Structures are given as C-alpha cells and as structure tokens.
C-alpha cells in the first residue's frame, strides 16, 4: 500500500475529477432517456462504440477531426432515433423486464455486428495530444479537453431544458406523463427529440473518447456497467444525482487505483455502490422508488 498525502495523491484526485466529466456526460444521457421515456437503454455504451467507429472511419477517410466528430454526433443521434422507433416504441407499454431484455438484445447485436464488420483489433486515430506537466503532476490534454467539453455540453443542455418550450416539456413529461396531451404536447415527438439528444450525447462522448481510448467492439463493457452504477447511485432519472455520483465514483476509481491498483479502484467503487444501495435503494438523490 502506497497511500500518502503527497503530490501523487493530489494528482490522482485531479485525474479523478477529469474522468468524472466524461462519466457525468454519459450518465446524463442515460438519465435523460430514462427520466423522459421511462426505459433504460442498456445498450447506451454500445451506441458510444458505434460513434467511435464512425469517427474513426470518417477521420481515416480524410475528414478533419472536428468534422469527423460532428459526423459521429449526428450518426449516434440518428441511431438513437432509430433505436426508439424500431425497438423502444413497440415495448413502451410492456413490463420493464421486457424493455431491459430488448435493449440488452440490442447490446449483443451491436457488439456482434461491430465484431463482424470492423474486426476485433484495436483501432485508434493516432491522435495523442500529449500531457501537461504542472508542479510535478502530469495530466493528459485529452482528459482536460474532455472535461471542458463535457462541462460545456452539460451546461448547454441545462440551458436548453430550462429555457425552451421543448426543453420544459421534456422536464414536464418526466413529472406527469398522462396530462401532456392537455398541454398540446405530442408525446411521440418529445420522445423522438429526447432519443436524438440522448444519442447525440453518446456521440459527443464518443468524439471525446477516441482521443483517449482505443476502439474495439467490446469497449462498451468497460463503460456500460460503470454508467449504470453511476445513474443508479445518483438516483435513476435524476440528472443532478448522476452528475454528483459521477464525481464520487471517479474519485474512488482514481484514488483507489493510485493507492492500491487500478482493479482495486473499481472494486472499491462497486463496494461503495452496493453499500449505498443497501441503505438507500432509491439512490443518493432519487425521489421515486
């Protein structure tokens, strides 16, 4: 064990913060979908994977990175809308277990399809923006960019949800679905917009992740469980809760990983999660059961 309050400890805390930006962005997308449509997209991280491949091929095909990133965001936004229309809509009235199974099925379908189409080898864009050294601590630029972009994206989403008619309808629908027609709100349209935004957030996460991570068909397994854990810990459907939980979990991973080993970081984070869920099954900020 190597846990002292030294510069490495501080570095781990700051790296945890940087990681939290990305995880918060992913959790926000999933919470938005769940809060509005009341369905959990188990395959959310697989949409991110599709976006990463899309960006990879657009970039390798000659597009500048920013254009490739925009293409990835649009691609996954579209994938979210298609997912809603083809898979979610038919099971909207079904039992939650069926909804989980059907989006779980999409998860395995996307993984298998990616393996068949793109192969199992690790791909990367070859973009490695390097690191910044500050007071003997090292932080990668890609993590700093990711953190900044994720925060800005979350701020923009918050403005959208609090200022625009559609944004307010999105928040209203998660509070009282049944009376939305009385307000003149077409529920199907709000669901499509929400699915598109949820997909777009996954696409944005993909654009940030290709800067840091190799792309392979199972990358969703590395992030999917983590995102669910964060959403449930914060209270499924609670966007603020998910945001805070992302920081808590990231710190467990980063500091635990720095003090013991990376695997221990994850183990401690999941242990903490289980203890909280025993005590507060609705999550830290969950209002409903």
């Amino acid at each position: 064990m190597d846990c002292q309050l030294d510069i490495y400890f501080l570095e781990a805390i700051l790296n945890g913060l940087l990681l939290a930006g990305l995880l918060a962005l992913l959790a926000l997308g999933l919470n938005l979908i769940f809060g509005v449509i009341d369905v959990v997209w188990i395959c959310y991280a697989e949409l991110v994977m599709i976006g990463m491949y899309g960006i990879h091929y657009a970039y390798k095909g000659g597009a500048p990175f920013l254009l490739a990133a925009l293409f990835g965001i649009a691609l996954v936004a579209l994938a979210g809308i298609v997912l809603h229309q083809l898979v979610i809509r038919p099971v909207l009235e079904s039992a939650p277990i069926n909804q989980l199974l059907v989006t779980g099925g999409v998860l395995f379908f996307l993984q298998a399809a990616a393996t068949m189409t793109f192969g199992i080898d690790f791909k990367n864009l070859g973009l490695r923006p390097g690191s910044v050294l500050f007071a003997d601590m090292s932080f990668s630029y890609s993590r700093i960019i990711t953190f900044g972009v994720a925060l800005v994206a979350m701020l923009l989403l918050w403005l959208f949800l609090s200022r625009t008619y559609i944004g307010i309808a999105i928040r209203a629908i998660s509070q009282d679905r049944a009376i939305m027609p009385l307000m003149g709100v077409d529920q199907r349209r709000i669901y499509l917009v929400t699915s598109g935004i949820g997909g777009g957030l996954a696409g944005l996460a993909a654009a940030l992740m290709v800067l840091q991570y190799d792309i392979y068909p199972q990358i969703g397994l590395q992030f999917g469980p983590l995102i669910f854990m964060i959403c449930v810990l914060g209270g499924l459907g609670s966007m603020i809760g998910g945001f805070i939980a992302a920081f808590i979990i990231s710190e467990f991973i980063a500091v635990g990983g720095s003090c013991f080993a990376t695997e221990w970081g994850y183990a401690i984070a999941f242990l903490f999660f289980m203890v909280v869920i025993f005590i507060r099954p609705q999550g830290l900020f969950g209002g409903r059961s």
Partner: protein
Amino acid sequence: MLELSNIDAGYGGFQALFGISMSVKAGEAVAVIGSNGAGKTTLLRVISGLLPATAGAMTMESTSLRDTAPHKIIETGIAHVPEGRRLFPRLSVENNLKIGGYIPAARAKFDERLAFVFELFPRLKERRAQLAGTLSGGEQQMCAIGRALMSGPKLVLLDEPSMGLAPVIVAQVFDLVRRIRQEGYTVLIVEQNVRQVLKIADRAYLLEVGRIKASGPSQELLASDEIRKAYMGI
C-alpha cells in the same frame, strides 16, 4: 360552441358513459353535477381526448373532436384543468404557465397572457420562481387555472376545482371561477359541491351512473326537491 350527441365511453370492458347528449353555448357557465363515480370526470376526459369515446359525435365549433388527436384538441380552444390540479411539481410556477402556452398559436402571445394571468392572480406573480409543488392548495388551483388560460382557450373545463381544499379556500376557488367567467371565458365545470356550483352556473346537467338524469337552468335544479334531498342533504 360544444356539442355532444349520444356519446358512449368506458375503460376496458367497463362502460362509464351512456348516450350523453349536451351542449355548451358561448359565454355560458354550465355545471355537471352528480355523486362520486357518476362519470363526471370521465365526461371531461372524453371531451379533451384523454379517453376516446366509443360511440356518438362531439364537435367544438363544428370541428369533430373524435377525429382530432388528443394533443390537438387544445388548439380547438378547449383547455382542461384536471382533477387534482396536476401541476408539474418540480417546475417553477412560471414554467408551469409556460407549458400551458406550449401550442404554437400561444407562444407569440406568451408575455401578454402571462401579464393577464398575473393581473388576475397577483399571488402567482409573487410566487413565479417558486416550485409549483410548494404552493398551498388554493395557490395551486390558481396556477392550474392560469396554466389553462395561457393557451388562450374559448372554453375552460374545470374538474372538481374545490376538491381537497379547506372550506374557506373552497369559497375562494369559486370566486376564481366567477372571475374567469367575468373575463368572458365559457366554462364547463364538474363539481360535487352542488349548492356552490349551482350558484355560479347558468345551467346544469345531473349525471347518475353514466346517464344524464336531469338538466335545466340552475335555479330550477336548486329548487327541485329531488336534487335538494339527494345532493344537498336538505
């Protein structure tokens, strides 16, 4: 303005309304009275499209409501203040009002109508930034009525506005209804509080287990021994 003829409706295999025919003319205040379970709330839900009618015809100023999608019915000029108020508890008062003016025709007039609602209910202006869930019962009813007015309706459907409120607040709520009448809105109100509602309505229909049993000017119904015995405990 609103015409119903031979409307049937129900939930699953259970029929709740049988051959309802009624009308509301522009400028009128019409009450639907009856005991719990008579089908009063169901009737309003059918008019605003939350529950589809299974038979009959229903028109609002010659637009067939049965052929109109539920979320388009508000655009014909019908705003429904639902039973239990149903505000969005975690939205501010102002955002609740804003969502009431969601339809495209209402958005351009948002500022004007917000000023009108605040003038009608100054209390809402004081509380505009507060979450709707933290309002008192009477204030919630103001907010629910204000939300309905934001769409610029011609006809306001009010479902049991006095429900769950303390007696002193009930009197205030009937006063609110009187005020929106004076503003020129046509009102269709459903109430169990028969004596009070007959004082503010021009005409009333009596609903019993899904059928209209009596109708006429409020004064006549107020004078009817049968109604006094059954619904006013006299």
